[in-house]
């Protein structure tokens, strides 16, 4: 097991280095300096600013200096919000995004997992078709359409739930979490169904049934762990999707999270903010992929045996 984890960790290192390097040079070749757009500044001021942000150094030195800062966890100052560092902006926005992502994941796992298991228990009946058709709708209905529609129905017509904000009014976290989680619930339902169908056709399940175990025991104790391995393996890629989804959901519901900061930084061409956030989110996504792979491997007895003896 440890060998598997260290192997995957070793694979993650080049990925993270590629992310940092590509992002850094992409941002540096972007046309126009960060101080060009606003009111023109005198040459001396510009030179002073460039010196402050180390833009006067040769490109490669900027790169090594950035790597050095990064190693100390310092993502640099923001170009657009003078006096604030990228670290501070991330510290302000990330907890909100993380909470939103967590709730969305819970929505996805509970609804999707349940639907998948229910559908797999009676394949090719109404009990299978109805949840799976709903899942297809969930996959084809993007969050930027589902969000406004939910707002329209539950926020405006029915007036049951608040339509914007985060943690200001009770209940304002419900619609964003559902909007972000719905698509993943659909994927998880499909994966869970496929995984459960595979497990339920195994001999050991037949043995369990032949012993006369009740249905709930067969499902909960014998099949669930094996059947949900594909779902766990999907959580890594899903995490990357949740981050991207938070860009949209935070914009729709005016939530002050990292996703909204990121999109605003993209509009403002706040280069250091973009650079810092990209690096931060990418490292996070790579690590989460790692975690989900390790968890899926740990749940799979065959893989565990393969790596466990070392």
């Amino acid at each position, binding site marked *: 097991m440890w060998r598997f984890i260290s192997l995957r960790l070793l*694979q*993650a290192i*080049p*990925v993270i280095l*590629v*992310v940092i390097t*590509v*992002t850094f040079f*992409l*941002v540096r*070749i*972007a*046309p126009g300096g960060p101080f060009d757009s606003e009111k023109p500044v005198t040459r001396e001021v510009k030179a002073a600013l460039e010196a402050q942000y180390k833009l006067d150094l040769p490109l490669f030195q900027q790169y090594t200096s950035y790597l050095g800062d990064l190693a100390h966890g310092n993502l640099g100052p923001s170009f657009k919000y003078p006096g604030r560092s990228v670290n501070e902006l991330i510290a302000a926005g990330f907890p909100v995004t993380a909470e939103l992502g967590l709730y969305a994941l819970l929505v996805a796992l509970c609804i999707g997992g349940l639907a998948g298991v229910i559908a797999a228990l009676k394949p090719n009946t109404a009990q299978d078709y109805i949840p799976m058709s709903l899942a*297809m*709708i969930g*996959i*084809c*209905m*993007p969050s*930027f*359409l589902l*969000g*406004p*529609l939910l*707002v*329209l129905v539950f926020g*405006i017509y029915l007036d049951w739930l608040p339509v914007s904000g985060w943690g200001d009014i009770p209940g304002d976290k419900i619609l964003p979490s559902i909007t972000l989680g719905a698509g993943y619930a659909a994927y998880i339902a499909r994966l869970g169904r496929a995984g459960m169908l595979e497990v339920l056709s195994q001999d050991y399940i037949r043995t369990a049934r032949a012993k006369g175990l009740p249905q709930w025991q067969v499902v909960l104790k014998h099949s669930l762990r094996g059947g949900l391995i594909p779902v766990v393996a999907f959580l890594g890629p899903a995490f*990357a*999707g949740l*981050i*991207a989804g938070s*860009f*949209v959901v935070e*914009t*729709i519901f005016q939530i002050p999270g990292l996703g909204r900061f*990121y*999109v605003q930084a*993209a*509009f403002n*061409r706040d280069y250091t903010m*973009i650079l810092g956030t*990209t690096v931060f*989110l*990418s490292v996070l*996504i*790579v690590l989460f*992929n790692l975690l989900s792979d390790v968890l899926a491997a740990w749940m799979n007895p065959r893989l565990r045996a393969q790596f466990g003896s070392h």
Partner: protein
Amino acid sequence: MTTQTINDIDQAEQGTSLWKDAWRRLRKNHLAVFGLILLVLFIVIALLTPWIAPYSYQAQDLELGASPPSAAHWLGTDIFGRDLLTQIMYGGRISLAVGFVATAVALLIGVTWGAIAGYVGGRADAVMMRLVDILYALPFMIFIVLLTVVFGRNMLLLFLAIGAVEWLTMARIMRGQVQSLRQQEFVEAAISLGLSPTTLIRRHLVPNALGPIIVYTTLTIPNVMLLEAFLSFLGLGIQPPQTSWGLLISYGAESMEEFPWLLIFPGLALTLTLFSLNFLGDGLRDALDVRGAKD
């Protein structure tokens, strides 16, 4: 030369029966057929839009403003009094074009890359596929946002960026196919007859791997269209005066409280297209009996 021709004829015969068989199976799948018909309909409408659109793209009626669906404007008008049906038709041209062109880019890169890696094998294969693994782990949604910042928001770039993201799975599928095909006798025969690698890949390997490629292509197009709509919704994709379904949805979301039809109809157009493509892709996968092409 003669042997090659004979070889081709053999293959052609076998190929036809395989495709006929697949088509027969596909026709039995009602959802897939429905998807195919709807898709063809949308494509035909998109191609003919300049001639059949009820109003001109620029036409506006500021006095009318936003109006609900009526006999003159079947899907209503937006706040500038522009006909929504016309807007959706022109937006569909762009959304579909992005979907197809970016997928074509992905197809070209992915198939070439995978075929070469699978054909050459050995160390080159290891290096090429390791690179694919590394790129796979990159968070591309974030990178595309970054690219729009660096290179400005133009459509050509959008095609390229999305195409550059989606080729990875294609490369993996193609490599697996080529690797298993390489061991078959007809390929060995072709090699021993002195066929050049390029001809071999083009003539024998790619056509034989066509099934999984077609299925995956069909399932890539909706992903690409979603990506375009996602970027356009955030304002980082298609820019006015051009329009796309994603952009229309974003305008619709702004004024949905008073004018809900501005959100619902573009949303319906996008969702129906994605539905069609997904059903068709699922149907093709079953008809061509391709395993594991979706993930």
